[in-house]
């Protein structure tokens, strides 16, 4: 992987720590730079993916029409995308109104898994044992680092116009769907991500995302998202991003 975009990395790290006033942010700036160096040293970024054709299971009514936002959606919204998203090749139905809306117009889905590896996990635990204050900054920085590297990885796949990365567990798609998706792309064997029965990733700094794309669609479609993607989110009521007038999925 090449170098990450430091500005985005720093901004995301601060976001994970909570959007506070400038006084606190300035104090943490040097520490975040230090965390980046530690991550470059200790983390071992690994990612893998598989692409699948999408279909729709219209027998499942999710109570949503799959509309895209009035502000940006450029995937062909007049297509029939009703019902639940289905990956026929995996014999897997994803009963999610979020996904139904997000993937409207997409013809394919890319399942991406990524991780910072076990060595980082050990290192983070060690830092936390000796200096919890720094450990908390490192944890936020690691989340931002994983996202930035996964963004770069996604872009290098050459999917063309695509949706943002949607992660089971953060919307109305249950976190347990991580299990069959991880198994399908063999993330355990390829990059060492395993899971608990409840869909919890091991190592902890790992993620799985679903990216919709349509090779023939018009450019700019990657900005498309439904009006209220937070509708089903577990943190909707307590979300610091929403409180600050932004969204966790906002790119910069």
């Amino acid at each position, binding site marked *: 992987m090449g170098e990450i975009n430091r500005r985005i990395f720093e901004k995301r790290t601060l976001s994970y720590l909570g959007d506070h006033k400038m006084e606190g942010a300035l104090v943490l700036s040097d520490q975040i730079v230090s965390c980046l160096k530690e991550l470059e040293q200790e983390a071992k970024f690994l990612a893998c993916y598989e692409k699948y054709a999408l279909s729709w299971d219209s027998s499942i009514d999710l109570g949503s029409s799959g509309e895209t936002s009035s502000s940006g959606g450029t995937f062909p919204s007049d297509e029939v995308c009703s019902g639940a998203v289905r990956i026929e090749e995996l014999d897997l139905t994803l009963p999610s109104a979020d996904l139904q809306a997000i993937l409207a117009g997409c013809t394919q889905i890319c399942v991406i898994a990524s991780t910072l590896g076990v060595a980082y996990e050990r290192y983070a635990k060690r830092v936390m044992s000796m200096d*919890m204050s720094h450990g908390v*900054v490192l944890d936020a920085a690691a989340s931002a680092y994983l996202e930035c590297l996964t963004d770069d990885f996604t872009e290098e796949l050459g999917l063309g116009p695509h949706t943002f990365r949607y992660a089971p567990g953060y919307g109305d798609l249950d976190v347990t769907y991580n299990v069959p998706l991880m198994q399908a792309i063999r993330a355990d064997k390829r990059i060492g991500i395993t899971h608990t029965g409840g869909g*919890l990733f091991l190592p902890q700094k790992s993620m799985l995302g679903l990216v919709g794309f349509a090779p023939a669609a018009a450019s700019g479609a990657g900005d498309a998202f439904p009006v209220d993607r937070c509708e089903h989110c577990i943190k909707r009521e307590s979300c610091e991003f929403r409180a600050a007038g932004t969204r966790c999925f906002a790119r910069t």
Partner: protein
Amino acid sequence: MSENRKNNLLARLNRDFLLFDGGMGTQLQNAGLKAGQIPEELNLDQPELIQTVHSNYLKAGADFITTNTFGCNRLKMADAKYSVPEMIKAAIDNAKKAQEACGRTEDSYIVLDIGPIGTMLKPLGTLPFEEAYELIAEQIEAAGTGVDAILFETMTDVYEVKAAILAAKEHSDLPIFTTMTFDKTGRTLTGTNVETFVNIVESLGVTMLGVNCSLGPKELAPIIEDLLQYSHVPVMAQPNAGLPNFKHGETVYELTPEEFVKDVKYYMENGLAVCGGCCGTTPDFIRELHKNRPKAVNVRTNPYIPKVSSATRTVTFDGHVIVCGERLNPTGKKKMQAALKENHLDEVIAEGIRQEDAGAEVLDVNVGLPGIDEAAMMVKIIPMLQEVINLPLQIDSSSADALEAACRIYNGRPLINSVNAKPAVLDNVLPIVKKYGGVVIGLTLEEEIPLLAAERVELAKRIIDRAGQEGIRPEDVIIDCLTLTASAQQKEVAETLKAVRAVREMGHHCVLGVSNVSFGLPYRALLNRTFLTMAIDAGLDLPIMNPLDTQMMACVDAANLLLNYDKDSTCYINKYANASDASGISTNAVNSGAGAGNGAGDAGAGTSGSGTAGAQTAAGAGAGFDLSYMIKKGMKNEVQAQTKAELERSDAMTLINDVIIPALNQVGKDYETGKIFLPQLIQAAETTKLAFQVVQETFSASDEEKKGPVIICTVEGDIHDIGKNIVKVVLESYGYDMIDLGKDVKAEEVVDAYKKYAPKAIGLSALMTTTVVNMQKTIDALHAAGITIPVWVGGAVLTQAIADEIGADYYAEDAMGTVRQMDQIIK
């Protein structure tokens, strides 16, 4: 398998060059297996298909066929329509039918294939070691005597491999083959390199070891070379058919059989005993291997050097001086005793980290204390240490039960401290050493310590001979000639050195507890480091000592340079480039400082070295900031000196109520109003804790000042503990006595902890929606046990509504919210 058949196989291994089969999954996918389908069900649904795959490999020339049971464990087969035993028995039956159909029942072997369990073991994951053991044992039990050998393959966690090998050893007497998967960096995904893998599994007694999967033969060449360099048992390799490419949503391997064989042929002729194929390989690959295989194995003879390992680091007894840190031992250490008794194990862990940072290569772990269940404490603390410390551990106990429990749970190849020449001790402990593959320390004493060197050497010989009878290599016994105290037995100090010299001349490595020499005398540091230097000259290469004593560490560093182990003086120059000859060795240049002064003081070196830390903090105290400012700014390095200074002007309670608590409250308010971030709140909380430590020293009965105790943990199934740890630190800074049960804690353990500690409140944390159910389970268990103290819950997915629903008494949104609530709960 009959004894004859087993002997035949063992005789052929490492004599005849033998072939494994190739990929099973690839063959099944070609036959129409769909993603998501369970391959092991085919053993019953399409037995002919499985038999055909086996037959094709046998016809191509394979000597070993692996059963179609790669993922056939209870966890992975949870959704299968057949039971694990049914599928395993059918798989073996299919392999046997293929042998019969090909007329190869006599000259081919069936191997029970066991792949990774599919989830990570504790402490990094949630699967307990013994449960992993049980899952593997079930598979081995199901296979019974229907196979000729057991193969553990594609595992990436050597801890899982250890559980598997133990399960095999305790449930069968079949030959055990073990291959792991390594990446291009030469390590498994969990960080184990080839040398460490070989040291661990060979010492556990595997018949053959090797590598499979992940890379093609060309990329695996350095891995195979390392395996051949380090192993003393036959080596096997099963590469993939090159590196995978992804085309049209499918994984494609593009190496041809000819290219595959070309890349692996050199190793077939130079040490490999067995070769086969993994992903992407087919009967054509095995046929090509058969065509090109040498008739006999080109057997290697590698020298044997004793080594101990953690999962990620191996320490070799090659003659260099290896420092074993002595500080994880409660003997004579009040803080360590209190930490073990009060379950404040994070302090023990921190002491381990400090020793690793100071340059120790091995850490001694002793938890022997009246009132402590030593075996249970070993099982608890060893995984906690191994989660954050890379060093191999020296398991130290006089109890055989504690040694066995510790060796079993230990991830790696342990150093075991110790046996002596008493027959009963040898009888009890040596079988444990053999079973778990340890390197053992032999104390040269029987009923008492002999005074003369020659007598101690005789006891050393007796221990080594007795170990040999148990099948333990003589090199794996490290001899302790025992340091005597100069104040009481001055004459015998020289006898110890004489014995060390004699034992080294016999070719054995030597260990000594160095600082015993100075008990009862002033200026112990001088005696310790002088004796250390003399003992190293005599041949000591494993001093058990305090690595935080920078001057003793300097002696070791100098010795390793002068004895030509520190090649080109690299380590020495790195550490001492800024040290001054004129002023002696600057401790600042040697050590990052954490605990350097404390450690030297505890070991009795205070007269020479303990002033450093004090001087540094005194400088901080003179910087002109008051205690309130230091807490608000989180000035951890300076706060204790300033607290001491302010205690000279004010009594303790006034300082707490008028300075410390208001400062901390201000920080909390700044956090809640968005002026500072969470790490700054934590920094202030940790600073406050340090100030409290100084203040508490002035209390006559400090327990009365503590609030609580309060139990806190992350519930079963959840391993996210950052939030829980933050709440703990902040509550501690407000004076609460926190009992931390850790993460992934079962409901019964919380109930047991209540009975043990009688807390005033219990806090439960969970991050995932899927583990909130275990929060409720814990609350229900507490209620069922008649426990009515307040339970508060917190975590990212929790809300007041959920807290009410699951029966919690309080919900806290964050750490400061918990403080407010706790002030209400515990008044």
